[in-house]
């Protein structure tokens, strides 16, 4: 079974600037992958190559088993750009109808109504884009990306303009999509959100993937904190497996243990270490 997305040695040069310097990434069907990295790391370029908006300078990328950017590849994807705009004169329903025709989706009115309901815009069917708030437009953008039931969803900062309720809607939606077998590449700066919903996280820096794995795999043990009558002591570098031994030693030494806490790095710590070279 081909991967939903497979990039091998992907390079992209814009004039003198090298945006991607051999990025390798694989996203399986039904997997939710969070792509993290500082501004200018090459995340958007990678997503744009997957959509066919940008041509790679070297390397290759396949989407659903066919070359990225081909008509066949574009039949299977849904995309929400980081900076997008829809024509202000179109209503939400008209916009989705346009994208249905472009995507050759036969979903008709039922699909449009379902998508608007999913993103919480069921009552905004006839509202023109120019009359929508930024958050509403972003939710409409997500609905637009879902037109034609794509097998791979590429979301570039999909929650940047959303309030907490809107973010919750998107989170629930992503989990629902994963259960349906849709692969999602989520490009986001919101680490807590990525940690909550993603199966796997890839960290990009200077045009290449520097770390990837499940959020739990990426978080490393920072130590064990033991609270005794003498105070709190940190056993640096120790993990969960070391706890029985540490407690036993304390008790043997006549100490009284009131509490033990295993400390591990958060995704944020891992990310900051990765991007700062630490």
């Amino acid at each position, binding site marked *: 079974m081909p991967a939903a997305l497979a990039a091998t040695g992907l390079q992209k040069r814009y004039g003198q600037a090298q945006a991607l310097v051999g990025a390798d990434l694989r996203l399986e069907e039904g997997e939710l992958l969070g792509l993290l990295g500082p501004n200018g790391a090459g995340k958007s370029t990678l997503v744009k190559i997957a959509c066919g908006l940008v041509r790679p300078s070297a390397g290759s990328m396949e989407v659903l088993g066919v070359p990225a950017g081909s008509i066949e590849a574009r039949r299977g994807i849904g995309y929400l750009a980081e900076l997008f705009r829809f024509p202000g004169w179109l209503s939400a329903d008209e916009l989705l109808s346009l994208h249905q025709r472009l*995507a050759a989706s036969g979903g008709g009115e039922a699909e449009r109504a379902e998508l608007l309901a999913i993103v919480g815009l069921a009552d905004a069917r006839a509202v023109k884009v120019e009359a929508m708030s930024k958050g509403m437009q972003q939710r409409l953008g997500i609905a637009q990306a879902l037109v034609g039931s794509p097998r791979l969803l590429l979301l570039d900062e999909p929650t940047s303009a959303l309030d907490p309720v809107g973010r919750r809607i998107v989170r629930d939606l992503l989990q629902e999509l994963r259960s349906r077998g849709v692969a999602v590449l989520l490009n986001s700066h919101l680490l807590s959100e990525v940690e909550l919903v993603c199966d796997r996280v890839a960290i990009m820096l200077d045009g290449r993937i520097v770390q990837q794995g499940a959020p739990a795999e990426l978080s490393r043990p920072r130590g064990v904190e033991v609270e005794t009558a003498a105070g709190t002591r940190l056993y640096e570098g120790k993990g969960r497996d070391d706890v029985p031994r540490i407690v036993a030693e304390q008790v043997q030494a006549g100490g009284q243990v009131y509490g033990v806490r295993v400390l591990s790095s958060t995704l944020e710590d891992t990310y900051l270490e990765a991007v700062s070279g630490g």
Partner: protein
Amino acid sequence: MRVVAAYAVQESLRRRVFTVVLILTAVFLALYGWGASLAFDEVTAFSGEGDPGEPVDPEVVAGSTIFGLAMFSTLFLGAVLAVFLTLSAVRGDAERGLLQPLVVRPVGRTQMLAGRFVAAAGVCAAYVGAVYVVAMLITGAVGGWWPDRVLAPGLALAAAVVVIAAIALLGSVFLSATANGIGVFMVFGAGLAAGLLGQIGEALSSDRLEDIAEVAAWLLPFEALYQSGLDGLTADARGFTDFAVQLGPFGGADAGGPLLWVWTVVYVGLLGLAARAGFARRDL
């Protein structure tokens, strides 16, 4: 391509520029009717000053001159419409984030471009055709003058704005909206200047100036089409009347012949190929 073209037509008709052009057109046609009425009223005096040995048909001179001016105004308004409907079709829309959601759909970039062109060309040609017909009806109603060829000048004018739309669309692949708008209007102005140069050359009997003007008009065939359209207005005029009707203001009448139509099709095709090649290479 049909979906993109239908969307682009819808977009064209809902744009403010279309409303502005419609208002300007209504004002122009009202003023034109008034001006034509005054011009025809003055025709008798003009006729009285003519040389009895070289009879001039005053109705033809007045009708073709004022209708030639109307054709120029129609071309200008059509050019404004063509430029504003296409100036940001690629790079401008991409910079605003409007293009990317459409381009990622399973529609080829060539089809996307062709759809935009068909829509812009269709809207502009229909607009120019309608204004041409209304101006002709006004001229006929107030002065009783009708062009010798009715269809050919209208078609030439429509083809001229189609060429301008194609130039603006090509420019939109490489230039930002503002730069493209300025550039296309400069090209349009160059075409008009070529027509003016040709008239000066004719007045001074300078073959070289006339040759330069002709080459320029064919390099920018909207000007040659406009001149061909003017020629159709008085195609049957003979003698001094034919000499007197030096239509303008930017370019005298000059029959382009069938070769002009072939060249126009080839020209638009070449512009389309260049736009396609540029768009295919463009990162969005």
